């Protein structure tokens, strides 16, 4: 796998990230979606792509292969993607609580997005899957990593995705303790922002 370099229409040289150096685990109980996601990742040049058909297998794979990123479907059985993410973030048996998680979901309703966010998911990818959307989420995770937050009720990337410079209101977490942030509902705009990355 070479060092990907190309020039855009203005002649500016672009150097791609070396995805051939990373390992990604894809978890989906649908073999077709699994194949689609794997084909996209291989097209993007990802060096190693491991797969798992359910959360239990995924835990084993993570222990053995130590992936740099996990992509998981939300609607899996018997353990759904949201519960899987929560276990990965909080379980004492978790092989890697920091591993970035991109959740693929066909359900973009507020409740699902909030549950996934509160389970510690880094990014969302709405179905139908496109190569561009997955590529952009991958770059988002790499280019804009978030701090990690541990409270009694939450472990995962900071759920406050954007720092608002002109915000002069109270800092909820510092003022009221950790549980208030999780209890707050998302506005439609916030859900849209999460889905769009």
């Amino acid at each position, binding site marked *: 796998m070479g060092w990907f370099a190309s020039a855009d229409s203005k002649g500016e040289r*672009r150097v791609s990230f070396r995805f051939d150096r990373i390992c990604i685990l894809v978890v989906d109980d649908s073999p077709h979606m699994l194949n689609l996601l794997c084909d996209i990742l291989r*097209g993007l040049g990802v060096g190693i792509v491991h797969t798992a058909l359910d959360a239990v297998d995924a835990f084993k794979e993570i222990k053995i292969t130590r992936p*740099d990123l996990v992509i998981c479907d939300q609607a899996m059985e018997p353990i759904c993607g949201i519960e899987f993410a929560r276990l990965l973030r909080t379980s004492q048996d978790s092989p890697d609580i*920091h591993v970035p998680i991109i959740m693929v979901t066909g359900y973009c309703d507020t409740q699902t997005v909030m549950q996934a966010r509160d389970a510690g998911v880094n990014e969302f990818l709405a179905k139908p899957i496109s*190569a561009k959307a997955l590529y952009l989420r991958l770059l988002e995770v790499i280019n804009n990593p978030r701090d990690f937050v541990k409270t009694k009720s939450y472990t995962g990337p900071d759920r406050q995705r954007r720092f608002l410079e002109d915000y002069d209101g109270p800092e909820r977490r510092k003022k009221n303790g950790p549980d208030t942030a999780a209890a707050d509902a998302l506005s439609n705009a916030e859900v849209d922002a999460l889905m769009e990355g």
Partner: protein
Amino acid sequence: MADTGDQDVVIYTPPNKLKDKVTLGGRITGNGYDPKVLARANANVAAMAGRLLKVAARDMVRLEEICGELNQNSREEHFIDLEKIAHEITGYGTTIGFDLLTRFGRSLSLFLRKTDIGGEVKRKVARAHVDSMVLVYRTPIKGDGGKNGDTLTSMLNLTIAKFVDEP
């Protein structure tokens, strides 16, 4: 490393292994976006589309079979099977050029997962979705279907509303 402003909250920056690897420890700068890389991934998706079309053909047959079984003996397992297939179709519909399959698949999947409606109304609404999806696939109505797509979507919505509202 940790923000100790609140005893119950620990905020820290974990090592960014991912970025270190893809940038060779920071030697590659920029945001990493490269249209050529994306073009390769898109080519892979296009190659996959042929296989997914065969999957879609099988799924349409299976949807019709389940609806036939629902007509004879409506059981919860049938709806579970329908939801699974609809969820799959949501995922690959647009990839194979059938945006309406994704739209109707998502609608059916959400309806079956979230609704409290049961009995005959549930069966009729499921059937209306399946009929619409089979029509889209067999016609075929590619992309969003333009005016035909809008008309079909409106008809499906009207049908659902009628079933749900009727006493």
